[in-house]
Each structure stands twice: as structure tokens, then as C-alpha cells.
């Protein structure tokens, strides 16, 4: 290759890289504004934008005051509720979905394909569309404002079952047979062979369950009416609705709500992208 050509490819690469940096900066800008706003007095959040400068995104004298006041109000109750609901959903949901995936992959029985088809069919019914009739049933059954109402509907998740089944199918049958020869029952095979071997898949599945609950807005809005049962996104929404909106507190609460999943997801980043890549896009 001639020197001229390598120079032009290098120039093109540099232009591409600069363009990429600009694009990424554009995507980051609102987040930078959010974090900066959470660290400065609420009164300065909008005034610091005029004129737009580096100081709009980096507060000169950062303070944690907003975090203190956000965590002192109703937002704290919402945050605690959100953590309880998400944690319970992940633990119970993983058990329930992994057990179902186990029955659909490790065990041989008649009707397996039909049940699997039923689970795939449940993908076709969006949670949002059934939320309204379902919440009416919950209200009639007196289940509003309970953890049960917030957690139980999300424990059986078709997509999580699907993902785990894909992973379980890759576990060799000879392992099951060897365990059976040694006298292990299905419960032991499930807990001592399948679950320990599936850590990456379980992490991915757990993240899907966690994120679903952490992001939930419609369902918690429909089944909670009492302030002590609200989840964090609802209390955050109420903070904006109040006419004395304190954007310092709102930005601090928003930062907390974003930071928790970001830390968890980035911590498990590899397992997450791996399991997303397994979701049937490639084949």
C-alpha cells in the first residue's frame, strides 16, 4: 500500500473518531447536566445555563445538600420500597423462572413443546395492555397497596424462562444421567448441577428482572394509592408535580435512581451483553 493511501485512511479514521467523540458527548450532555445539577443549589440549575459554558456541567462548588434533603423526604420511602420490590422480584423470579426452564429443558415429558409454545405465546400479550384490567381485579380483591401486588405479577417472566431454557439446553445430558445413576433426584440435579453451571445466564436474567421492576411506572401507579407504598419513580413524579418544585432535590433523587442500576449493570456488563446476544437475534 502506498504512503498516500495510508495517510488518507488515517485522516479518515481521525475524522471518524472526532465525529464519534462529538456524538458520544451529545448523548452524555443531559446526564452531565443532571449530575452537575444534583451537586449545586437548586436555584442555580437553570441560571448556570446562561450563558452555556463548562460551568453549566461542572459545578464550581459541589455540595451534597440536595442528596440529604431528597433522602429526608417521601422519596426515601419510595426508594426503600423500590429496593425491596426489585430484590424480591429478582430472587423469587429467578427461582420460579429457572425451575420452569429446567422442566422445559432437562426433563423429557409429553406436552413439553405445547407448554413452551404457551410461554412464547405470552410474549404476544404486552404487560402494559393487560395492566389496566388486571389492576381492576387487584382492586376488587383488596390487594392494592401491598408488596404482593407489586411483586407477584412479575415473578413469572416469559422472556427470562426463554433465555434460561436456551442456556440449560446447552448443558450435556450425560451430566444428568451420571447424577441419576448416583441416585440424585430432580431437585438435587436442579440446585447442585444446573444452577451453579448457569451463573452467567442467571446474572443476565436477574438483571432483566431487576430492570423491569426498577423502571416500572404504569403498574405501581395503578396498584398503589397510599404514599407509604409508592415506588421511587412515582414519588419522583410527585416531586415535580408539587408547585414548589425544587430541582436540586429532583436532580439528586434522579441521580440516585439512575446510579443504582448503572452501577449494578456496568458491574455485570459482560454477562448482560452475552445474554442479550443470546436472545435469538443471532442464530
Amino acid at each position: 500500500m502506498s504512503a498516500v493511501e495510508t495517510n488518507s485512511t488515517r485522516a479518515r479514521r481521525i475524522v471518524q473518531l472526532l465525529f464519534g467523540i462529538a456524538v458520544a458527548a451529545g448523548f452524555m450532555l443531559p446526564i452531565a447536566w443532571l449530575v452537575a445539577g444534583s451537586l449545586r443549589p437548586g436555584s442555580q440549575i437553570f441560571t448556570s445555563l446562561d450563558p452555556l459554558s463548562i460551568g453549566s456541567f461542572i459545578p464550581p462548588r459541589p455540595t451534597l445538600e440536595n442528596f440529604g434533603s431528597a433522602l429526608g423526604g417521601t422519596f426515601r420511602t419510595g426508594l426503600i420500597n423500590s429496593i425491596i420490590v426489585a430484590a424480591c422480584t429478582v430472587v423469587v423470579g429467578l427461582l420460579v423462572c429457572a425451575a420452569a426452564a429446567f422442566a422445559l429443558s432437562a426433563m423429557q415429558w409429553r406436552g413439553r413443546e405445547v407448554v413452551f409454545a404457551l410461554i412464547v405465546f405470552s410474549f404476544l400479550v404486552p404487560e402494559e395492555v393487560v395492566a389496566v384490567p388486571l389492576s381492576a381485579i387487584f382492586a376488587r380483591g383488596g390487594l392494592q397497596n401491598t408488596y404482593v401486588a407489586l411483586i407477584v405479577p412479575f415473578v413469572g417472566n416469559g422472556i427470562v424462562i426463554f433465555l434460561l431454557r436456551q442456556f440449560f439446553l446447552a448443558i450435556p445430558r450425560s451430566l444428568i444421567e451420571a447424577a441419576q445413576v448416583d441416585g440424585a433426584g430432580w431437585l438435587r440435579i436442579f440446585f447442585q448441577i444446573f444452577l451453579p453451571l448457569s451463573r452467567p445466564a442467571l446474572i443476565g436474567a436477574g438483571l432483566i428482572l431487576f430492570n423491569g421492576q426498577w423502571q416500572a411506572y404504569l403498574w405501581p401507579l395503578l396498584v398503589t394509592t397510599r404514599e407509604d407504598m409508592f415506588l421511587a419513580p412515582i414519588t419522583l413524579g410527585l416531586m415535580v408535580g408539587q408547585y414548589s418544585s425544587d430541582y436540586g432535590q429532583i436532580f439528586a433523587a434522579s441521580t440516585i435512581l439512575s446510579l443504582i442500576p448503572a452501577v449494578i449493570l456496568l458491574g455485570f456488563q459482560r454477562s448482560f451483553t452475552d445474554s442479550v446476544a443470546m436472545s435469538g437475534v443471532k442464530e
Partner: protein
Amino acid sequence: MAMVTAYEKRIVRAAPIIRRLSKWRAAIAPLLFLAPALVGLIAFRLLPAGWLVQQSFSGPDGEFAGLDNFEFLFASPNFAKTMQATLTFVVVTVPLQTVVAFGLALLFVENSRVISLLRVLVFLPVLIPSSVAAILWGAAYRPQGLANALLRSVGVSAQPFLASPDQALMSITVMSSWIGCGFWMIFLIGGLKDIPRDLHEAASIDGAGKLSSLWHITVPLMRRPLAFVIVADTVAAFLLFAPIALLTRGGPNGSTQLIMYDVYQQAYFFNDLSLAAAEGLTLMVVMMGVILIQFRLLSREKQQ
């Protein structure tokens, strides 16, 4: 000796029972493992879906009302406006996000350290809960907010964004694209990585330019991941709720009255569960119709 014979006799007698029992146990074991998930999916997905259908053909007192709800719905100017806003939103948002996500995937497909970092930055908005994203963009769209500050810095006068019936829906599109594009990008990068490198090298030896090799090689080979992104994004666009509920409540002037928010309003402000159910069922049917058309179009291209 005799005792053993008696014992053996007992075993012979019990054998069919034990066999039947172990057969029964073999059949029941999968069911026990499946039961919790199956009960959940049936109780919280399939039964409410059935209830939705039943409710949508019922009157206010639960009596069978035939197509009354649908007739009322389709004659209502409010529903026409809702449908128009929803379809406009889907038709603008899905192609926009697909194209932007594809561009991002091409830009950030390489695995160098810098590119990986930039990719993470573009992906970050995905990690932000949608309610937080809505509130953040609501603040950014305020008269003194970030969006106007950016416009001001390039000499454009202040825009009303969410306060204007002409701009509100587009502002929601920009907001949801900020969240969505990084997510769809990840799937498309996965697809791009599966394309063998030598295909492009062969094309460039044959004298094909970057653009023509993109159009004739990359795009056709990306059909599966692109189809996934288009369909999944369509579903997400039809079901958008939190930003509308938190920011515009359908306004100004009905310009952001998307269908999920309208269903919620029918049920909780107007207390008309039947009409809400009829509208929810219509949403499902329209959404499935659009997805079916997308599948048709995408698979027809394949046959060419």
C-alpha cells in the same frame, strides 16, 4: 428361605403399583417445577387478556353489549385524534431510531479502547429509568432549560418544545430516541460483528465504494438484527406511557395523546373500564397488524 419367598411374592405383587407410582412421579415432577411460573403467566397475562376481550364486549353493568364500545370508540373524535397521534409517533420514531442506531453501530463497532468507551457513553441513557429520563428531559425542555441553552449558543431563538402543539410530539420522539438508540445499537453491533471481513475486502478490490458496499453487502446481511430492532421498537413506541403521564398528559391540545395514556385516562379518570378495554384490544390488534406488515415486507425483500 420361606421368608424370602414371601418377601419376593410381596415385591412381585407390589411391582405394578410401584411402577405406576414412579410413572406418576415422573409425570408430576415437571409439573411441579413448572407450576409457579405457569400459574403466574396464566393468572397475570393470559387470563387478564381474556378478561380484556370479554370486558371490551360488555356494557357498564357487565352485560353483553356486542360491538357498542367499538362503535362508540370509532365514532369519537377524541379516539381519532389519539390514533392519529399514536401512528404519527410510531411512523416517525421507529425509522428514525433504526437509522440512527444503525449509524451508531457502524461508528462504534470496532473494539479499540477509545471506541469501547464511547460506546458505553452512548449506551448510558439506556440505564436511566424512563421516569427519570422523562423528568430530566422535561427540565431540559423548559423555557430556560438545557435544550434552549444549546439552541441559544448556536444563535437559534428559544423554542416552546412541550408547550407547543406543533413541537410536543417531536420533542417526545427526540427524548425517547436518546434513550432507545444506544439500546438498539448494541443489537446491531452484534449483527455487524457476524459479517465476515473478507466480504468487504472482496468488494473493495472489485472497486465498490464505501457507500455501495454498505448498501449492497452490509444492509442485506443485517436483515435479521434490523428486523428485530424494527419490530421491538414498534412495540415500544406503541406502548409508550411514562413520559406522557409525567410530562404532557396528552397535551397541548391533544397533540401527544398517545394510546396507552388514553387507555389509562379512560379507566381512571372517566371510570369506563369497558371503553378502556375496547381501546386496549384495538391497540393490540393495530400493533399486531403493523408487525405483521413489517414481517411481510422484510421477508419479501429476502426472496428477491
